[in-house]
């Protein structure tokens, strides 16, 4: 059962373009997938190390801009006539540049702010996101400012011996985002299931105890920040090349809030949490747009969020897990009482 479930979901996700003909729904799936990847990255920090990054969209936006600029090329004067000129590179290179650049900025933010944790980390991350937004807005020569970077080319994948393939339609992007999401999931799940993940969870739960058994707290916090930022940067790159246009609004606080909501409602500190939360809040607009005005939609989001936090404070995934194990236990108890099983069976 535990093994069959992920396979089932994977097969379902793989076959979606075969039976889903609605282009709008497919578009929603792609953007939902991109934000779900970002939410997964946030979950690594928030759910496993306990640090709330309220500027997480900065890494997403940095990834988007890094990828777009690598692909489009630029010609900027840094100071006193010193110019940096970059010729356009293939989009797929931009994807990896985005991951590296976002990871490096995650490292810097991690080093700076994990000296002071908790509320200070929250403040540093918010400020960082705001600063990146202002840079994107005002460094017009590099980013076009509010005019936006446009005509960002699509990804082109090269297969040795098979030629190249350009992602030119939604179905292709769907599979690319799915593959990226799978990659992010594997990286995060391997990490949190390992000795490294145990160290992260330990420092979240009891920092003094963790350091007393030899866990280097700062090191693992920074590592989580780097991986988290790198994954968010990759998601940002997908976003830029899928929409083909990005502007400084990508750094808006509301995107961070969206990611946080996805993680909290799905269940922070669980692998499936951000995915479940991502699907709920990714598809909510689709469900409510037929009968609610845009302003009403926001009210509905807020109400739903509050209801979920009140009813399922741990999030959807832990609540379902709890329900399933309880049911199994009740079943076992019933069979023991009926005399058909011995205690210890089904463990």
């Amino acid at each position: 059962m535990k093994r069959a479930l992920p396979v089932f979901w994977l097969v379902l996700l793989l076959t979606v373009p075969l039976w889903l003909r609605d282009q709008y729904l497919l578009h929603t799936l792609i953007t939902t997938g991109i934000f779900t990847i970002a939410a997964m990255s946030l979950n690594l920090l928030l759910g496993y190390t306990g640090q709330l990054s309220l500027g997480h969209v900065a890494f997403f936006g940095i990834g988007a801009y890094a990828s777009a600029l690598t692909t489009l090329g630029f010609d900027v004067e840094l100071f006193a006539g010193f110019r940096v000129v970059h010729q356009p590179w293939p989009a797929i290179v931009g994807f990896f540049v985005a991951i590296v650049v976002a990871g490096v900025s995650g490292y810097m933010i991690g080093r700076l702010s994990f000296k002071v944790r908790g509320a200070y980390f929250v403040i540093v991350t918010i400020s960082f996101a705001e600063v990146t937004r202002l840079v994107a807005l005002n460094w017009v020569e590099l980013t076009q400012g509010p005019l936006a970077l446009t005509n960002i080319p699509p990804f082109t994948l090269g297969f040795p011996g098979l030629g190249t393939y350009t992602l030119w339609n939604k179905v292709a992007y769907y599979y690319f985002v799915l593959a990226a999401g799978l990659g992010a999931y594997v990286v995060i799940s391997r990490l949190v299931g390992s000795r490294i993940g145990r160290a992260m969870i330990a420092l979240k739960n009891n920092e003094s105890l963790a350091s007393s058994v030899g866990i280097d707290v700062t090191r693992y916090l920074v590592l989580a920040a780097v991986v988290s930022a790198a994954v968010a940067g990759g998601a940002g790159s997908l976003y830029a090349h899928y929409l083909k246009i990005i502007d400084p609004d990508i750094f808006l606080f509301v995107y961070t809030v969206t990611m946080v909501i996805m993680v909290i409602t799905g269940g922070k500190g669980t692998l499936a949490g951000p995915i479940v939360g991502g699907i709920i809040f990714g598809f909510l607009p689709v469900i409510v747009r037929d009968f609610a005005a845009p302003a009403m939609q926001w009210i509905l989001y807020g109400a739903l969020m509050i209801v979920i936090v009140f009813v399922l404070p741990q999030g959807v995934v832990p609540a379902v897990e709890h329900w399933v194990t309880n049911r199994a236990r009740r079943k076992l108890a019933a069979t023991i009482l009926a005399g058909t099983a011995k205690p210890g069976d089904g463990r």
Partner: protein
Amino acid sequence: MQARVASGEVVLSIEHVAVHFGGLVALADLNFSVCDGEIVGLIGPNGAGKTTAFNVFTGFLKPTTGEVRYRGTSLNGLKPHEIADLGLVRTFQRTSIFHDHSVFDNVLTGLHRRGRSTLWDTLLALPREKVAERELVDHAHEILALVGLDRRAAEVAGALPYGEQRLLGIALALAARPSMLLLDEPVSGMNLSETAKVMKLIDSIRGSGVTILVVEHDMPMVMQVSDRIVVLNYGRIIAEGPPAAIQKNPDVIRAYLGEGKRRA
């Protein structure tokens, strides 16, 4: 030094350590040392500075003046995890376990220092990682068996009875493979049979070559397990010696019972 079984040279030396919190003197000019293989009991009335001393030795608190050395290395300025890496590991006075995790996962987390797998081993799922994880699992079982919690392995740590939570705290410290163990009130709140169990455990830990410094309020217990006793009062050492001598020491009796007797 009147150590009964001091088998070797000094491993932990505390030289002129003082801790001031503002105007309050928590520790005033502390000087003592622990030899290899010894069990030393650190006792004193409430507020004497015992836990403060532990915090200084393990890097959780910086001494205002003075120096702590472990096996020749100065601990000044080192972080707790760096001190643990040197083999000096502590337990905490209040229950110090990861409450939401299983007993087994607690010990597995404690084994962090023994893990050898790197970030890349983990991300690429190299066979090395699997081997290393299996070793850790074996170690965890060994440690749980040693402290007698093997049958509790699957239970949630926070749901254990108090005495067993304390044992798990010791198991966590042991998992970090200490060459010297600092136990902060290991038997506080335990009943007689649990206390006897811990005393046996302490003995077997020493038998495996680990030096032990123990803070404890339970006098019969600490007098029985220790080779040597150091008595603190108001941040100063007022007596030091074998348990039998300490029990008769008039200064120690006065520190614990006050001076009421003389006036009465």
